[in-house]
């Protein structure tokens, strides 16, 4: 398709015996961007990476790398390198030998190898650790060795399978910055796997949200956060309040007994829909000024904000993130803008969703 695509999946299907793991995956990876595969355990994220790296074969469909079909090319001939979930560092080699492995296979000149290894170790801030054994490295250091070992081969694409999941929170956040920064500096395409939505939002150019072997939605973090295609995505990405509603007509939706102005359109009149309101878009105000009235049930201090749970008269639960405190048991008003309302149709596919958005955004 576009000239900038480095990896393309065309109707790729993967099954083990009768178990369908990936159903009809279509995707396009552009050069130099940071992609994230996001989804719960077992949805097929690693399987997609394995298909790109060549560790498994697609049952159906074609996979192209740099415009060439690679379905039958073994992993050692693909210009792709992987950072494994468990790092898979060679325990019988020191840091230097681990990083040099790929270069030695390519029979590079010894001095060149030394130079390149030193350079890449400097990049991941591990200069001086060459002689260390793998067991003498901390989790975060091992992860950086794994990244260095992959990067030193100058791959077209770097695959990272949940490389941060084994690290503690502080180190994980640090590494998120480092990885993102590294990717931007080198301009190498990253495909990153995680089941942590915050990680995905923080790091990616493009996120693929997966569910049971399918890509449910793809887009920039902002797109996916602001315009989740369905309840699954809305729930998976960030906190959300989801209530049933009816689309009265374009730009007018009714829920919890009121009709509100909104920015969504392109649906049938009186179509049943689901409405998403993010907790941080709801503003605490007086009952008179609020568009909704809820009774505060619980309140938790979360550091940056209070997480307030309240119930409206119909018994719907509302979560509000507010920097202001509320009084438990009191009635408060909730205010929001029309653009804070996001309307989702039932069973809409990504293509239909995109088409609909385009149709009314052009006007």
């Amino acid at each position, binding site marked *: 398709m576009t000239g900038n695509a480095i990896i393309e999946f065309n109707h790729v299907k993967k099954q083990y015996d009768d178990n369908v793991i990936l159903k009809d995956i279509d995707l396009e990876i552009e050069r130099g961007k940071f992609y994230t595969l996001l989804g719960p355990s077992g949805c097929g994220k690693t399987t997609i990476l394995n298909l790109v*790296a*060549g*560790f498994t074969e697609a049952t159906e469909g074609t996979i192209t790398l740099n415009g060439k079909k690679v379905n039958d090319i*073994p*992993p*050692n*001939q693909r210009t*792709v*390198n*992987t950072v*494994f*979930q*468990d790092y*898979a*560092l*060679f*325990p*019988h*080699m*020191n840091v230097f030998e681990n990083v040099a*492995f*790929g270069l030695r*296979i*390519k029979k590079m000149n010894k001095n060149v190898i030394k130079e390149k290894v030193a350079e890449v170790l400097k990049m991941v801030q591990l200069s001086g650790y060459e002689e*260390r*054994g*793998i*067991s*003498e490295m901390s989790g975060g250091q091992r992860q950086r060795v794994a990244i260095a*070992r*992959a990067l030193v*081969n100058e791959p077209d694409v770097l695959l990272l399978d949940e490389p941060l999941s084994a690290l503690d929170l502080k180190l994980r956040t640090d590494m998120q910055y480092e990885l993102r920064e590294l990717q931007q500096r080198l301009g190498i395409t990253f495909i990153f796997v995680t089941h942590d939505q915050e990680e995905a939002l923080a790091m990616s150019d493009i996120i693929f949200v997966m569910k049971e072997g399918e890509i449910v939605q793809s887009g920039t973090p902002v797109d996916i956060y602001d315009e989740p295609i369905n309840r699954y995505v809305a729930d998976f990405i960030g906190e959300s309040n989801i209530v049933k509603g009816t689309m009265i007509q374009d730009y007018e939706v009714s829920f919890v007994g009121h009709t509100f102005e909104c920015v969504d359109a392109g649906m049938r009149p009186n179509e049943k829909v689901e409405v998403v309101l993010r907790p941080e878009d709801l503003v605490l105000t007086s009952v008179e000024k609020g568009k909704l009235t809820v009774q505060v049930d619980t309140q938790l201090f979360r550091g940056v904000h209070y997480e307030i749970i309240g119930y409206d008269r119909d018994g719907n639960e509302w979560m509000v993130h507010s920097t202001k405190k509320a009084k438990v048991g009191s009635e408060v008003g909730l205010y929001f803008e029309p653009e804070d309302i996001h309307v989702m149709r039932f069973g809409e596919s990504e293509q239909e969703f995109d088409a609909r958005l385009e149709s009314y955004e052009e006007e």
Partner: protein
Amino acid sequence: MKQNKALYFVPYTFWLILFVIAPILLIIYQSFFNIHDDFTLENYQTYFQSGTYLKMTLNSFWYAFLITLFTLLISYPTAYLLTKTKHKQLWLLLIILPTWINLLLKAYAFIGIFSMNGTANQFLSFMGIAPQQILFTDASFLFVATYIEIPFMILPIYNALEELNPSLISASYDLGANSWQTFRRVVFPLSLTGVKSGVQAVFIPSLSLFMLTRLIGGNRVITLGTAIEQHFLVTENWGMGSTIGVFLIIAMVLTMLLTGEKKKKGAIR
């Protein structure tokens, strides 16, 4: 609490003293007495001066080496294939099974198979080849010894290969290595611990094999084991027998040290 734990070791310590330490001390003690019960270094002199004993020692090492080599050559590929098969447990059981049968019984079975009108020769005549002397040859001795030792080599190698993290192999391919390079640079080095234990388990007992040397080798192969047996049971020169025993023990300790785990820097255990 500590007292209690120490208590558990009492039976083992007892066993160790009674059946390991005491016999070794006794052997060393015995080795200083000649056949007339005089305290002397005569036995050691004999050992080094008469070429026979040194030759015997070399012979023992040579045969133990050959047995270990053949066993290794057969066992490594077998263990490797074993890790790739389905029904691993079944195959493993089949390999272990022969070790549960008494060594003598197996030796007698081979006498039957290798004798002039045994199964092996029947097969040869079926192929149109005249009966051969198979029994009482070096080859038959090596064959049977190797057969007997194979399970002890396969098991540790198999275990080492099974423990290997499969993502290391993926990583090797990922970094551009082909199957042979992956084997040479990743699989084989990481299975070396198993190979070492296997070599220990085979080489050391092979140094002192004596039943097989007699029954299958027809005493054409003389090892340290055979010599000890002769001195204790036939010539009743216990002192000389003990001296050879001392050298056997030294040889074993040396083998242990050579094949033993050297604490490698950075190796993950």
